């Protein structure tokens, strides 16, 4: 951080501008990456594009918003200590909520369709996505809702043109350990090994004594918990939630997962960061309204020329 600070104070304006846009992009990208992990893990293990994942994330943000006001964190007399404790409590609650919900959906909706043709679970996922959106609509109504900004925005840079705030640090500090933890988990733990085994060949895995359904359930629960984490961070970072945020964020996340090579954990993270960067640099140098088109344009080009994504070669080692 320190050398960066030194550089920033002497660098020319165009460079600090570029740096700032990179910070914007990477922070947002980290958020997208968290959601993308849920897509990629589920795809890796049962080959399902879980369209409902974005809406699960949306329900998480609604829960976070409800908890924030239930704990009284939005009142002006809430001390910063109380806010910190409250937030620490909200994270696990949201994660458990989303994880349990995702697991329940898998058990009720997808599990009976394991042997059905691929289209059946996909369409069911679209149905679940509708149901989630509708729950969100009935829960909080159709208008966008504001989340109070609870995380301070103290800037680390002395240069007024460059901002890396406590908020950004908070985001980075939450996202990075989760990613590393997940990668280690998949690589070294017993659960991770069985997940990889199931993804490569469920029948063989079963023959080797792996409880396939339990592994799939764990994957859904973990993916859901990640979406829960992401939802709290999103609520605190973007500060606006609404019943349709699942759509565009889910789409971005899903694109990130594909971009990195769907089923591949580091790939999803890379994809998320790339999308964040493209989005903010696109907005900065091309025009804010073209950002979405650029993201999907890149997606199409990559898929046509490298159909298995950026980290495609490693897809054999998928989760």
């Amino acid at each position: 951080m320190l050398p960066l600070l030194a550089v920033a104070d002497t660098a020319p304006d165009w460079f600090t501008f570029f740096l700032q846009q990179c910070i914007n992009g990477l922070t947002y990208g980290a958020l997208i990456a968290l959601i993308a992990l849920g897509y990629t893990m589920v795809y890796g293990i049962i080959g399902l594009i879980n369209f409902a994942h974005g809406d699960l994330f949306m329900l998480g943000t609604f829960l976070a918003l409800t908890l924030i006001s239930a704990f009284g964190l939005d009142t002006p007399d809430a001390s910063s200590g109380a806010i910190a404790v409250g937030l620490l409590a909200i994270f696990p609650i949201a994660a458990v909520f989303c994880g349990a919900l995702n697991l329940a959906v898998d058990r009720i909706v997808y599990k009976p369709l394991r042997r059905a043709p691929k289209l059946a679970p996909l369409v069911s996922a679209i149905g679940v996505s509708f149901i989630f959106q509708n729950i969100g609509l009935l829960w909080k109504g159709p208008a966008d809702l504001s989340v109070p900004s609870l995380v301070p925005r103290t800037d680390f840079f002395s240069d007024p043109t460059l901002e890396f705030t406590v908020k950004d640090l908070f985001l980075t500090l939450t996202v990075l350990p989760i990613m590393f933890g997940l990668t280690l988990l998949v690589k070294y733990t017993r659960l991770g090994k069985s997940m990889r085994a199931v993804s490569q060949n469920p029948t063989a895995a079963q023959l080797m004594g792996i409880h396939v359904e339990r592994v799939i359930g764990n994957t859904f629960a973990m993916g859901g918990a990640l979406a829960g984490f992401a939802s709290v961070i999103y609520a605190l970072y973007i500060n606006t939630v609404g019943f349709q945020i699942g759509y565009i964020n889910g789409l971005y996340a899903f694109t990130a997962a594909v971009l990195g090579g769907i089923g591949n954990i580091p790939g999803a993270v890379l994809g998320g960061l790339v999308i964040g960067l493209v989005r903010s640099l696109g907005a900065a140098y091309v025009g804010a309204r073209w950002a979405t088109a650029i993201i999907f344009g890149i997606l199409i080009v990559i898929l046509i020329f490298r159909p298995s994504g950026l980290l495609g070669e490693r897809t054999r080692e998928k989760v």
Partner: protein
Amino acid sequence: MHRIHFWTVWASTAAAACICGCNTSSSTPSGSTTATLRVNPDAPKSGAIRIVSSLPRTGSAKQQSDTIVNGIKMAFDEAEYKVGDFTIEYSDLDDATAAAGQWTAESEAANAKEAANDPNVMVYIGPYNSGAAKTSMPILNNVGLLMISPAVSAVGLTKPGKGEDNEPGVYRPTGKPNFTRVVPADDLQGSYGADWAHQLGIKSAYILDDNQVYGKGLADIFRDRCQELEIEVLGQDSIDEKEQDFKPLMTKIKSTNPDMIYFGGTTQTKGGQICKDMVAAGLNCKLMVPDGCYEAAFIEAAGPENANGRVYATFGGLPPKNQVGKGKEFVEKYQEKYGSMPEAYAIYGYEAGKVALEAIRQAGVKDRAAILGAAFLIKDFDGALGKWSFDENGDTTLKKLSGSIVRDGDFEFVRILGEEKN
């Protein structure tokens, strides 16, 4: 075998339908409406008249449109739903969908067609959004149905020579205007806004818009006036209202270091998020927003802590709290009846309702052309907004706008705009 079936069936049904069509041609609305374009002396002088309103009743505009509808209902309540021997029926139509979160062309067109096709409908109150007006105006113009909008302010809809080349003629297939509005048009709002900025000592501005009829139109007028006043325009960008946050854009704006950002748009096109992201990107300049953001939902969306002291809002007319005379009476009665403060446009809904009744009273017959004609002849109407008239374009002669600043989570009236020009 199958194909033969199909064609015989087709031919026979077509024939059958045509024959039935023949029998009913006298009762279809098309027959009667060609006649209504001329004043019809045989038109009924009593019976039920239907008035519809078409406003966004879903999404974040609901808060505002609820109070507009309350205002309309108050106007009818006071007349006990009666004008002369006519009884008034009122329907509250929605031109928004939950999925879109704002008005959609499909819903607005459906509402307009429903109104056009129902011979009992004599007045169409609405719409709320300028883009929606573009959709419904030609449809309703064809049947000569009077439109009274409580909120639409895009310039080109009424004023020749100020919008695009073919405006407003393109919305008037019959050549006769049928659209009126009780709010001042944006040529005033945009330029008064720039005047206000100039008086605040603003030297440079960055202009944003939502790329819609209303927002883009306003932003362009604001920009032109800025150039006249020698306020430096550092850039103009359209946002994608479907985006979740605008931090990259705000970082870009920050690098140009403006004194003020102007956003031409509404709460529904992410006005609140823009305010929020300005703060998040560390921009300390002012934000000026037009009347599309002049509602409680905007402050909620922006977060009061972000909006306080930063947001300057222009609005066509006076805020509810600063109304005088009949306007004040309205606000008091409203509070008594509904137990809360009306939003800024409620009084326009009330006025639109009053004007509708007045036009019907003046016409004295249940005839669209007569009522439309009567509305355009309304002069010196002594309503809640003061004394005003419609001009030949259907615009109000009211020219009073107000400027407010957000303080303590509410709009605080600062001054009247447009009284002195420099």
